[in-house]
């Protein structure tokens, strides 16, 4: 937890958001430079590491943000606002994929006790794909909170801003999400 660096914590203000809405190129460039990496990472781990798909979703997220910039309220952080939009875009993405009947990657059995061993670490690529596949099998709201919390390192309060849920609701969603993913991964 707490992996967010200073750069990641940087936020642009509401005035800059208004400039974005007016088509200010500098403000748009600042928005992208400030948030594109974070949003990309948030998306990337939810789409099984498919770079092109992740980039498409990030672009859709920022386009939607510009379109709805006039509705942005200064009380919220721009990052949580963008995470919220991106979460919806990812959900849309998985809905489309389900319609196309693209099954997630098959899961493989592995031994948890080997996680610390060098062999497992060497096989990290395979391990990563299993985690991605498990994430893709989760319901959208479970996947969102898990990635926000344990990959993006957001606090419970920040997740509340993104999802619009209460603290209790976020915590219970996190707990159910972990159980669900543990079951998918066959963790004991």
């Amino acid at each position: 937890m707490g992996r967010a660096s200073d750069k990641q914590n940087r936020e642009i203000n509401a005035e800059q958001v208004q400039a974005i809405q007016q088509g200010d190129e500098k403000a748009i460039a600042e928005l992208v430079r400030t948030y594109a990496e974070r949003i990309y990472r948030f998306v990337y781990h939810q789409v099984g590491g498919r770079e092109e798909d992740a980039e498409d979703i990030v672009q859709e997220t920022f386009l939607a943000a510009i379109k709805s910039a006039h509705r942005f309220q200064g009380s919220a952080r721009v990052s949580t606002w963008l995470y919220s939009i991106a979460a919806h875009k990812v959900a849309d993405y998985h809905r489309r994929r389900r319609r196309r009947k693209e099954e997630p990657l098959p899961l493989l059995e592995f031994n948890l006790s080997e996680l610390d061993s060098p062999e497992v670490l060497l096989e990290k690529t395979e391990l990563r794909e299993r985690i991605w596949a498990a994430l893709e099998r989760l319901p959208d709201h479970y996947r969102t909170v898990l990635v926000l919390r344990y990959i993006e390192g957001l606090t419970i309060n920040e997740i509340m801003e993104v999802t619009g849920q209460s603290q209790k609701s976020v915590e219970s969603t996190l707990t159910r999400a972990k159980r669900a993913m543990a079951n998918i991964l066959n963790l004991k």
Partner: protein
Amino acid sequence: MVTDKTEKTLERLLSLLAAEPVHPRPGFQARLIATLTQAAISRKRAWLLPARGWVWAALTLAILFTLVGGWLATPRPAITATLEVKEGQVIVQQTRPVFLTLTRSSEKTLTKGQTVKLAPGDRVRTDANGQAVITYPSGSLTEMQPDTDLSLLELQKDPSGWVIRLKVWLGKTLHRVRRALESFPTFETETPLIIAGVRGTVFFLHAISEDHTYLATDEGLVRVQMGDQAVDVPAGYEVDAIAGQPLRVRPRVTIRTAWEANITNLSSFTLEGNAPPGTVLVLLANGKEIAKGQADEQGHFTIQITFPAEGTYSLELKAVGPDGLVEVAPPISFTYDATPPSLEILEPMTTKVTGASVTLRGRTEPGAIVQVGSQKTEADAQGLFSIEVPLNPGTNEITVTATDAAGNTVTSKFYLVRK
């Protein structure tokens, strides 16, 4: 059951992903900035266009108002006449407003007993057997005879009374215009050649061709205009309007005496008819006056005609109205013939015959009707005839009668003995 240990393991697994450096492909950010800038500029331009919700709402309202206003402003025929088909078939072409100046045209064929509402612009055609009556709200009528084509040009009520305008393209129409006590109706009937303007009258109009219209007034007065000429046609008078010729009103003379052919065996007879009251009628035979009469107050006249001798005459009836207007009917050829036809029996040549019937042959005037008992035949162009006569056993009295076109007869009687 998921234990704390399991949860820790899961968190560790996810942190393995978090630890990995993840970056979009090179150039992605630059492309994204360009795409977003372009999109923002497009949106800014779109702002200037009527893309905002309130603009759409205003546009929708404007369209709605235009539609409703247009519908309300669309002229619709408030006053209509009724057409009823009396005989045959009638084709009605109608044009009705749909929206503002947009109209829809239709054509329907009506049969006897059917009715339809007529509005200005409608056109009606009767077929070869078609007859129809148009009744206007003012109570006036137009009777259409077969092969007549007319359009209703105007139908409205203004402060001075009803205004009805028709155009008779072709054919015969009789108009009965009702004059209301409190108003002065305008009833105009056009043909390709004339305009007939009337105020309370009954008149017959025959658009014979584009260059010829005949009009006869029964009641009231009709003002006929052809180009810059205008004449009044009073009751009992008529006019033939012919392009390029002066309009000339003349008494309308109707002969009521009927004869089957222009030939008679009577040396004198009475000619009866109608003409405007006071009209003097003179009958000329080969240019010489042979009889004279005058129409009484009811317009009725009788003329006693006596032929000076047998022969064929060229008869002309000259009518001089009380106002000096003269009508000379086209001359007709008329024959006074008081001489009975000849009759000669050619067969049988003997008085004694065999068989139940005999063929009687003979000669008389060409065209004469030959009758024997109930048997009848007509002599041919040479005057020859042939007729089969049944015979009884013994002596039969045969009576042959020949009657010519003038009604003169000749009879021949003889006996035949059936052996």
